């Protein structure tokens, strides 16, 4: 198959027309899809792929959508696990995990953040010590989505306290279904519990579940985080399940519902800009000149941010070097969410004092007000985001480092354990 759009489209369409059958079971179908290479076409041929340039993947996605074919499992941390293992894992790990991640049989979680290291992920103090012929893990992780459902965890742990901060870390695949791993829900200020705390006490990791080498943990983590940032926009796009009646769609709907459950308040944390105009009209606030001005200001910001993202995408599609416009979306989103929450408050008036079913929009406005603060923190705080923009885009001097020039053992740190 030539790597041209028409050749890929024709080949994919022909294969799908010959093989797609909505009456198969979900896992059965995904195994067939994986065997053909069309499930992960940009992956290497040796590992379930077709070596297709990433630019042509949308063509495959279009063909899948055209015929209504269900794709491989993409929801949740499994995508990050696959990408990381593909980049750094051993053949044994690829053998063991890639297929089952794509079929949806294995579920993953990410064990990076700790109570003592949020923005500073490389300051992790969860430890892994080689004892006998196993790694023994002790520590606490936090903000772990779906940990209670996960079979496997992507674990960042410290293996050498005499090395400098970034050099003493290693990356492991942790079996979550073992004694020594305790998962507890973490209740957020908006009442939801979408994340977990994971307490790890003498949990065991066999040596073959180390990813890359001892001391490579930070490098491997960077790969995972890079894919996380890249995928952040995709969260909503893959969350739409088909409403067709065949059995395979029902299975897919159930899978998506489970994976998306923790994210059900995410639209509210972004401020629900879409609700502002209808709310202004419905409440009569649209006649208030102050509200009109504030709403217009917010729409200027929201539309400009949307067009900035489109500019970034256009540059990417044309293979041009990405300009600064690609790094700004997250910071813009924080401003927009905050401004939207302010306006929702103004328009709700005294009813903004209330929550629950009898409050505006059955509690939705209240949920916006207590969810928006997450936007400027989750996935990198605004402050870290500004540092990244200043250092990587504007090439301003890096923050002076006072924790990287000495053994990690001697670095001042939080004592929270």
């Amino acid at each position, binding site marked *: 198959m030539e790597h041209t759009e028409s050749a890929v489209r024709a080949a994919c369409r022909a294969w799908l027309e010959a093989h797609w059958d909505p009456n198969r079971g979900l896992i059965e179908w995904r195994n067939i899809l994986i065997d053909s290479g069309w499930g992960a076409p940009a992956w290497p041929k040796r590992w379930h792929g077709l070596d297709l340039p990433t630019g042509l993947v949308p063509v495959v996605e279009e063909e899948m959508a055209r015929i209504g074919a269900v794709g491989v499992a993409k929801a949740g941390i499994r995508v990050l696990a696959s990408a990381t293992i593909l980049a750094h894992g051993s053949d044994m790990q690829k053998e063991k995990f890639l297929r089952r991640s794509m079929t949806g049989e294995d579920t993953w979680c990410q064990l990076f953040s700790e109570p003592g290291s949020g923005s500073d992920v490389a300051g992790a103090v969860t430890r892994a010590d080689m004892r006998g012929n196993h790694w023994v893990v002790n520590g606490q992780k936090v903000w772990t989505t779906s940990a209670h459902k996960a079979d496997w965890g992507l674990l960042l742990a410290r293996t050498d306290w005499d090395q400098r901060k970034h050099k003493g870390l290693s990356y492991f695949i942790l079996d979550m279904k073992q004694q020594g791993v305790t998962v507890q829900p973490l209740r957020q200020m908006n009442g939801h519990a979408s994340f977990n705390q994971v307490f790890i006490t003498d949990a065991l990791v066999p040596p073959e579940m180390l990813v890359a080498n001892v001391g490579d943990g930070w490098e491997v983590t960077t790969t995972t985080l890079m894919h996380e940032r890249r995928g952040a926009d995709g969260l909503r796009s893959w969350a739409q399940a088909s409403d067709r009646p065949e059995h395979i769609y029902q299975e897919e709907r159930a899978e998506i519902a489970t994976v998306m459950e923790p994210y059900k308040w995410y639209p509210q944390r972004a401020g629900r800009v879409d609700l502002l*105009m209808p709310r*202004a*009209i419905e409440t009569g606030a*649209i006649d208030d*000149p102050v509200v*009109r*001005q504030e*709403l*217009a*200001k917010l*729409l*200027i*910001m929201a*539309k*400009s*941010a949307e*067009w*900035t993202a*489109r*500019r970034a*995408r*256009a*540059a990417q599609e*044309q293979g*041009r070097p990405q300009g*600064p*416009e690609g790094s*700004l979306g997250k*910071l*813009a989103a924080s*401003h927009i969410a905050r401004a939207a929450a302010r306006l929702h408050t103004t328009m709700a008036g005294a009813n903004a004092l209330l929550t629950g079913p009898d409050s505006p929009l059955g509690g939705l406005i209240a949920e916006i007000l207590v969810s928006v603060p997450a936007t400027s923190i989750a996935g990198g705080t605004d*402050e870290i*985001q*500004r*540092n990244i*923009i*200043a*250092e990587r*885009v*504007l090439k*301003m*001097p890096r*923050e*002076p480092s006072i924790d990287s020039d000495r053994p990690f053992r001697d670095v001042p740190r939080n004592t929270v354990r």
Partner: protein
Amino acid sequence: MKFSFSAEQDEFRGNLRRLLAERVPTKEVRRLMETAAGWEREGWRQLDGTLGLSAIAIPEEFGGYGFGFGELCIVLEEMGRALVPAPYLATSLAARAILHVGSAADRTALLPGIASGVTIATLASAEDAGNWEAEATTLTATSGGDGWRLDGHKSFVLDGHIADLILVLARAPGSAGAKGVSLFAVEAGAAGFTWQALAVMDPTRKLARLTFDGVAARLIGTAGEAAAPYRRTMTEAAVALANEMVGGAERLREDALAYAMMRMQFGRTIASFQSMKHKQADMLLEVELAKSAAYYAAAAIDEGDDDAEAVASLAKAGAADAYVQTAIHAIQIHGGIGFTWDNDTHLWFKRAKSSEVLFGDGQHHREIMMRNWAA
């Protein structure tokens, strides 16, 4: 809607940027702004002629190059960046008014002179009240045996002191609102026409107050029908100015960054302080968002988008806030030296302030957005 510039457009921008950097460095801006006219005809004619700037967006049948509004906005962005004191915005908007309001005969009579760079033109619509809407017009036009005569005044007229041709918005005596508004062309030498240069805060953008005392004028288009096509012209004016503004804002941002990278305090560059880094990140965000809106609005004009009026006002209000805020930050980053006359920052600061108000301030344009979008 397109979200990127073509390779040809990028190349044109690059050539123009180099040309302006070479011919109109800040030293030259300062020299020109200190003159009464704020501009020199011969120097401008040479600069204009090098790339045919005046011909860019005028259709080929009237002696222009026939490029789109997007190309005009590229020129304006670069002129705003270099802070070129020239009647380019004024002449371009006068040409748009002739295109939208005028008959085929009007276009044929007036546009070739503009396209060739010979005629300097301007659009005179606001009066002492400082309102650019057609409805606010009080200057009157009366038709008699010897043609049309104009009586009244105009103010805040861009380059009104140097224009050869003035497009004047006027109304029929006794008419009100959008009805009875017409556009006229007046030659600067006409009897009864006088101008007075206004003492302007932004010395790189001169304005004039014009007085019309029984001035003979040429009717452009149809009598009493100018309000709607004039409104379209002002939609374009907002987009044109937005693009000029984002050029200036980006230049300020870059200059402030370069200064911070060089200025040493406490034994380190001030760019190494987190307070400076965060400020610069915020400035980048504001300028890039404003650029996106300005570019989108230019494309909306070229594509005849139904939403163009709202989008134009969005781009104008957004660019004004971004430009003014960037200017405030830029002066702050320069510290004490940023408040001196010798430092160049105040030149762009003043341009930001004049652009903020010209053609209606942010409040005005946000209200236009809401009238379009809030049903």
